[in-house]
């Protein structure tokens, strides 16, 4: 190894030249094999039919034409859209509410914060098994409480109308702790002088919120919206355990559909094409969100 020699060059431009390459090399070799190659291969795979066992067969654009006529592809998109429409506002509302509470001078804040954050670190598998039982139609705790209070049992996971909203509710419950922390940081970054000015000008609590807090939290809002969106497209184990994508494909998600195409039907080429398309859609959605949610606040 040559690093001793390069060091003896003394200070200046030559310093660390070789050793820099040596130290960074393993990462980039790994990157070439496990990122670069698959990325290039994806571009090949999408034009082929392949079940991994028999040789690849070139099919041109067939995977794409099929995709545009695939009801389940659009169904998965629609389901994800529904998930996001419920999940994002609910997430923002609940986490902002608790962030504001935890930002005030109440005792035991760090204890509450610790507990609220608990679902964030726990595996989605645990959460899904837990919710499956809590929200079960006959034996579930939630429905038992509802019927004990004289209400009707809700078909949380067994009706096509309720299943996706229930999953959105669960995902919100799991992630709120994370977004509370982000909003807390955002709130603490708002200069106190801003509130003082608002106070001196006689702003009401509501005005203080809508004119100071919300606008100044905009960067965090963007982060929350973008991360939730990526999370929505990455839903997999939750519907896999809770509903298997049903009832009537009402909880089929992007990843679940890719997984099914690849591993139940052995359509690697089509699954890769789906992956590529969902990824493009994610990028477009995130760009649009950045465009429309992000404001230049300073």
């Amino acid at each position, binding site marked *: 190894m040559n*690093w*001793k020699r390069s*060091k003896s060059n003394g*200070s200046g431009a030559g*310093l*660390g*030249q070789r*050793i*820099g*390459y040596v*130290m*960074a090399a*393993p*990462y*980039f070799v*790994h*990157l070439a094999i*496990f*990122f670069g190659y*698959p990325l290039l291969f*994806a571009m090949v*795979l999408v034009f082929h039919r*392949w079940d*991994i066992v028999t040789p690849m067969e070139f099919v041109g654009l067939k995977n794409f034409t099929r995709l545009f006529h695939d009801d389940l592809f659009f169904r998965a998109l629609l389901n994800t859209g529904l998930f996001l429409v419920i999940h994002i506002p609910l997430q923002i509302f609940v986490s902002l509410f608790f962030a504001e*509470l*935890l930002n*005030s001078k*109440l005792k035991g804040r760090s204890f*509450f914060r610790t507990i609220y*954050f*608990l679902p*964030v670190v*726990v*595996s989605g*598998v*645990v959460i899904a*098994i*837990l919710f499956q*039982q809590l929200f079960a139609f006959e034996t579930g*705790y939630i429905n*038992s*409480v509802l019927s004990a209070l004289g209400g009707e049992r809700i078909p949380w996971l067994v009706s096509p109308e309720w299943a996706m909203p229930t999953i959105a509710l669960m995902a919100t*419950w799991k992630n709120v702790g994370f977004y509370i922390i*982000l909003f807390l940081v955002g709130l603490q970054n708002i200069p106190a002088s801003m509130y003082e000015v608002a106070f001196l000008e006689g702003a009401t609590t509501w005005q203080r919120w809508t004119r100071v807090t919300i606008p100044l939290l905009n960067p965090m809002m963007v982060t*929350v919206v973008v991360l939730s969106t*990526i999370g929505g*497209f990455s839903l*997999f*184990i939750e519907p*896999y355990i809770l509903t*298997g994508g049903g009832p009537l494909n009402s909880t089929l998600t*992007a990843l679940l559909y*890719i*997984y099914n195409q*690849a591993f139940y039907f052995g359509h690697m080429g089509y699954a890769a094409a789906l*992956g590529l398309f*969902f*990824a493009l859609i*994610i*990028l477009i959605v995130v760009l649009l969100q950045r465009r429309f949610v992000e404001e230049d606040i300073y």
Partner: protein
Amino acid sequence: MKKTLGYIALFIGLIAFAYPFVWMVLATFKPEVEIGSLAPFPSVWSLDSYRMVFETIPIGRAFLNSLIVVASVTCSVLFFGTTTAYALAKLKWKGRETAFNIILFTMMVPFMVMLIPLYTLVVSLGWTDSLIGLIVPFMMNATAILILRQSFLTLPTDILEAARIDGCSEWRILFTIVWPLSIPAIVTAGILVFIGSWNEVLWPMMVIRQEEWMTMPQMVALFSVGGGAQSKLGPQLAAAVLLGIPIVVAYLYFQKHFISSLASTGLKG
């Protein structure tokens, strides 16, 4: 008055976020027929649910597999992460900026694009149904590099220069000077990788079919879905508790680090 309302809200939140876990743990000790009931405590404390888990699936083996995978991935990410981050932050070499931009680019590519081709690559390497297939593709991690690089950039170059003049090799500088000064960043990156690796379930579901190579999340998920639990509620919950315990214990022990570590992924974005 306002304060009281604040506390009431905080306590409602406490119940909403903590009680489901409490219910779950208590339910695992209930006889099967009592799980649907509203009574918080079991009438008889029973270990049957756990017994069934241990008798039906090799959960101990899965725990060991998880441990091996998580330890290998975390150590590797931290070792190669620090060498790469150090090269990017404190060493001068041609192409350094390009290299950094490549790393940023990899983070923008949604992993859905990579999923299937990465799987076929692992198949052709013959790594399905092995821990190698769970470890090697994830031995490097761009987020960890960004966190470590950010921290290394703040270290004063004078110290490093002084060490170089004293004849220290860059490796010694990295491991005896830079590492001890960057513990917070290493902990942040380490926890992030640890959580992600412990909870990872999609990738194992793709590359592992044989029970003996499954990690805990996959085995517990399949136990619940695949009929191993024979639709019994108690054992499913017991398996979930066993999967959750290690991370919850680690979290309660290092809670501040966990929170700031995970938050850092959002705050950078």
